[in-house]
């Protein structure tokens, strides 16, 4: 099978892949759910409501066509196949699991009791079937974030597991920098967890969906920009100086523009946010990281121009987004880069952020 044999190892680097989507099916979660939650799924065929009107971007929908399983299960649902196609062929030292979109307890728009039960079941399933079955895999704590108390309880329940490295928050129409949500960041910091933000189905056009997928997908970085702006000006990083946030799957090329824009606004409007005592760009440089994927085709000169704009080599972390249709190849997505920048992007920037990875934390 050709698809399993393509080697994708970047030379001389052991990769940390910061966005891998393992896939659960409702039946997998049943053993981890109690009644009545189990019964709502079994008896009433409960399913999470989804909104995206277009799921057709590529020939296998939202998945890489060659990642589908021959027995009909969806891409990302079999660890052995993932090992063969991704972890072994990509030379992964570590991979961070970020879940899949369906079901996604953290992005439910109501019935948070169900969301919380689903999040706990998901976390237990993830630990047993993925984190404890491959030493390279590390996990994300799923929470029903809009119900802050139960979310914090869940972080305390599983956040100390040695292989949990971050709390996952969805990018949708909630601005997570609001003080109401700060206990989530507090709990993450207590357990030495980063916070990963991954878009789910953000309504990128003024709270609505545009007509076409191509518009929606083009504008996803705007949802990331809103969250970064919101976190910084709401003082999240002033309140939790140890907090690290990874913006997942929005790319990074927008960051230099945003940092410059926020600094300029701060010079004019500091009086409104007097708790901010540093330039926003400095806060972002210290606390926020961005994944590479989805990479635009860039040559080395274009790429280095973005690095210059960031004024830092420490802010970008490689990610594949396996097994989704807009997967990035470890050897083909980025232009050729010199050491040590190459090593930082493929490996050490992520290790510095994820304290609990072996060799992780500030070096």
């Amino acid at each position: 099978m050709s698809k399993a044999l393509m080697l994708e190892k970047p030379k001389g680097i052991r990769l940390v892949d910061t966005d891998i989507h393992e896939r659960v099916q409702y039946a997998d979660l049943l053993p981890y759910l109690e009644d009545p939650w189990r019964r709502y799924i079994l008896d009433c065929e409960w399913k999470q409501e989804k909104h995206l009107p277009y799921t057709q971007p590529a020939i296998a929908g939202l998945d890489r066509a060659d990642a589908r399983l021959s027995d009909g299960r969806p891409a990302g649902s079999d660890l052995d196949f993932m090992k063969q196609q991704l972890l072994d062929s990509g030379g992964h030292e570590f991979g961070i699991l970020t879940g899949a979109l369906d079901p996604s307890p953290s992005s439910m728009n109501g019935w948070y009791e169900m969301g919380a039960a689903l999040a706990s079941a998901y976390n237990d399933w993830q630990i047993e079937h993925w984190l404890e079955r491959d030493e390279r895999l590390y996990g994300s704590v799923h929470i029903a974030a809009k119900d802050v108390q139960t979310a914090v309880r869940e972080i305390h329940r599983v956040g100390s597991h040695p292989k949990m490295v971050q709390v996952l928050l969805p990018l949708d129409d909630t601005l997570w920098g609001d003080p109401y949500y700060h206990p989530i960041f507090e709990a993450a910091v207590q357990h030495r967890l980063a916070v990963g933000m991954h878009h789910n189905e953000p309504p990128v056009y003024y709270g609505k969906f545009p007509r076409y997928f191509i518009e929606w997908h083009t504008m996803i970085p705007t949802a990331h920009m809103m969250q970064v702006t919101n976190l910084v000006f709401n003082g999240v990083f002033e309140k939790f100086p140890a907090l690290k946030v990874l913006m997942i799957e929005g790319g990074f090329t927008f960051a230099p523009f945003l940092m410059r824009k926020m600094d300029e606004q701060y010079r004019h409007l500091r009086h409104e946010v007097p708790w901010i005592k540093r330039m926003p760009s400095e806060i972002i440089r210290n606390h926020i990281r961005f994944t590479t994927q989805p990479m635009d085709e860039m040559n080395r000169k274009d790429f280095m121009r973005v690095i210059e704009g960031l004024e830092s080599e420490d802010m970008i972390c490689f990610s594949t987004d396996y097994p989704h249709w807009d997967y990035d190849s470890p050897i083909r997505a980025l232009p050729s880069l010199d050491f040590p920048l190459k090593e930082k992007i493929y490996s050490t920037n992520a290790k510095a952020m994820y304290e609990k990875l072996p060799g992780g934390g500030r070096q």
Partner: protein
Amino acid sequence: MRQVVCKTSDVNPGEMQEARFGELPIVLCRTLEGKFYAFSNRCLHQGASLADGMLCGAPVPTDTPGEYRYEREGQILRCPWHGREFDVVNGGQMLADPARCLPRFQIEIEDDRVVVVR
């Protein structure tokens, strides 16, 4: 260099198949009319194996927003990863960016054998 890569009956019209031309991975595409075409099996973009993609048609360019016409069945090769479309019968041109083409190979049919020539 000339190399027999398969028999004509090995690939049905409208299907494609992976093969080797010397060391090179290639993809053989057979249109619905039965004609063979051969290209490098590595996508121009990030190198996906094109044989894992799909030989299909495409919504062809139209003049009116909102108008769709799905045509050219069996002539468009879509990549299994990011879905770029390559025009099999027009030199492997990328539909969205025709200046970029898949590397292609000549095909000659000798009796029932498919011969790749370069």
